[in-house]
């Protein structure tokens, strides 16, 4: 009896902690004993997300240069699947993203909209990162190639090349882009070397947007919005492997899209997004749960802006 109880509690503990342990052990929080140096190149031991302890060159953990960041990771095609039936506007994806990218609270690279397709249909919460389209309207119009499409599907911005014409912002039909209107406030990342893969430190007068956290991807880790979501709404993966994961569960991408009727948001625009949505059926939460963390004013505002009256 005693043993059984013990067993159960331990199970519980592991199931709670392991995902966090697997997802989160990074280069920074490493234990001293697991580091060792060799003569050729400094190596760092890392615990990979799937529990493997590996040795990597320390240089590969530095943010890559703007030139290197244009190439893309070979053999990858990154996709995101967002399960609308699980979202209750917890907004953890937003805050995690802001922390990761050193954004002020008002700048959101991933936004959560309250959507209602028409007045009779059911409202639902709609997290929206950059769609990293395969036919990106923003990349087409950029006069200097500051925003570009990589072979691994990512659309990134080189803030050291951007001239701030904002053409990409008008071209993007999904309002994914944010402009740095003023000199960024005090930042923790000021001494960091700029890389389009980290998008930090921000540069005044240039355009920023969701970048799918390529610096995390390079370390084999999921983007912060994915691992930060308490409800496992967002799945991420390599389409070429046909596997997507939200940190705790993994699915075959093709099966998930097929079985759950995955779709592209506004597919008619022909932008071919790399973000897929699963329709909000058999929901885990009533959409009104999403109002819990909001002020009355915000709730009122959402309700007013939800359906456009004509």
């Amino acid at each position: 009896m005693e043993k059984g109880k013990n067993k159960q509690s331990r199970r519980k503990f592991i199931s709670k902690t392991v995902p966090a342990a697997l997802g989160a052990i990074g280069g920074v929080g490493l234990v001293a004993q697991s580091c060792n140096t060799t003569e050729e190149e400094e190596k760092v031991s890392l615990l990979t997300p799937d529990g493997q302890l590996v040795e990597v060159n320390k240089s590969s953990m530095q943010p890559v240069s703007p030139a290197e960041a244009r190439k893309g990771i070979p053999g990858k095609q990154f996709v995101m699947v967002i399960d609308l039936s699980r979202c209750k506007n917890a907004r953890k994806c937003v805050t995690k993203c802001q922390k990761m990218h050193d954004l002020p609270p008002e700048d959101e690279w991933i936004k959560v909209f309250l959507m209602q397709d028409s007045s009779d249909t059911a409202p639902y919460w709609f997290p929206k990162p950059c769609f990293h389209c395969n036919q990106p309207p923003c990349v087409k119009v950029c006069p200097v190639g500051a925003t570009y499409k990589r072979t691994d599907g990512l659309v990134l911005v080189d803030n050291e090349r951007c001239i701030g014409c904002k053409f990409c912002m008008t071209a993007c039909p999904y309002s994914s882009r944010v402009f740095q209107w003023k000199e960024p406030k005090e930042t923790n990342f000021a001494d960091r070397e700029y890389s389009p893969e980290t998008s930090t430190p921000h540069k005044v007068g240039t355009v920023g947007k969701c970048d799918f956290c390529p610096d995390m991807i390079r370390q084999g880790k999921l983007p912060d919005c994915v691992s930060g979501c308490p409800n496992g709404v967002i799945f991420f993966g390599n389409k070429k492997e046909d596997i997507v994961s939200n940190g705790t569960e993994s699915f075959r991408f093709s099966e998930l899209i097929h079985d759950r009727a995955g779709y592209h948001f506004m597919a008619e625009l022909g932008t071919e997004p790399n973000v897929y949505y699963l329709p909000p059926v058999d929901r885990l939460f009533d959409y009104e749960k999403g109002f819990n963390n909001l002020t009355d004013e915000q709730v009122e505002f959402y309700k007013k802006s939800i359906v456009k009256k004509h």
Partner: protein
Amino acid sequence: MKNLCKHILILGLIILFGMGNVFAQKAKKKTTRVGVAYFKSDTKIETLVATLRVKEKRYIPLNDAVLTFYSVSDTLKVLLAKIRTDENGQAIFALANNSKIAKDSTGLMAFVVEYEGNSLLKDAKRKITVKQAGLEVSFFQKDTIKFIEIEAKTADPNTQAAPINNLKIKLYIKGTFSLLNFANEKTDKNGIVRVEFPIDMPGDTLGVLTIVAKIEEDDVYGTVESRGEINWGIPVPLVKEKQRGLGDTDAPLWMVYTLITLLSAVWFHYLYVIFMIIKIKLAKL
């Protein structure tokens, strides 16, 4: 009399609340919890991952606290290491054939991880017992059907390896960010599991897939992992990189030609007119 009752009642209430406050003071020392898990990786690196959490509304990780790792047997308690927790509240200890680790005759190791506590936090500890196990992944083909075979054995260096039967094995395909589970089986009396290979999975350019076999969170053996690679997946070619299009670095050729034609047509006329102006200058009286 009535008044007196009232006063006593008030006094009682005051005492009660006062006591309550005293209790509250004591209760302010927060509960902590230590969790330990044993991992053995494919590269045979064994680690103990300890997590320290503190109870606020719910349990949250506590960083920068010292956890003490001990090896324990019936009689002894040997200090192994003191490790600070990282920002996720984790401290990782690598076993690395440490000679201080005690084993009993059956190869069972026992560890205790302790947190001392301080003026604000309660102390906590957790014991874990582990037996070393190993997995071996191999592939074979029978007729046209492809199989994966996993053999589970004990892996105590001091004793002979013995097959482990009735052990739950989970099989995964390795992805960039996660493992995709495709089979869960129990070992037979020889400690063997045979599973059909998932032939419809895309691999890399050569079709190579990594199969991961795991004993997961087993009460006796902890988490043990082993991997095998084979080119039985569907090869996925790399996309051609250089292209000409609206979204690419290089423009479509028709666009280049049109632009050059238009610009040169106009600028040719400009140059001609400038030539004329020079002629006017030369033709002066």
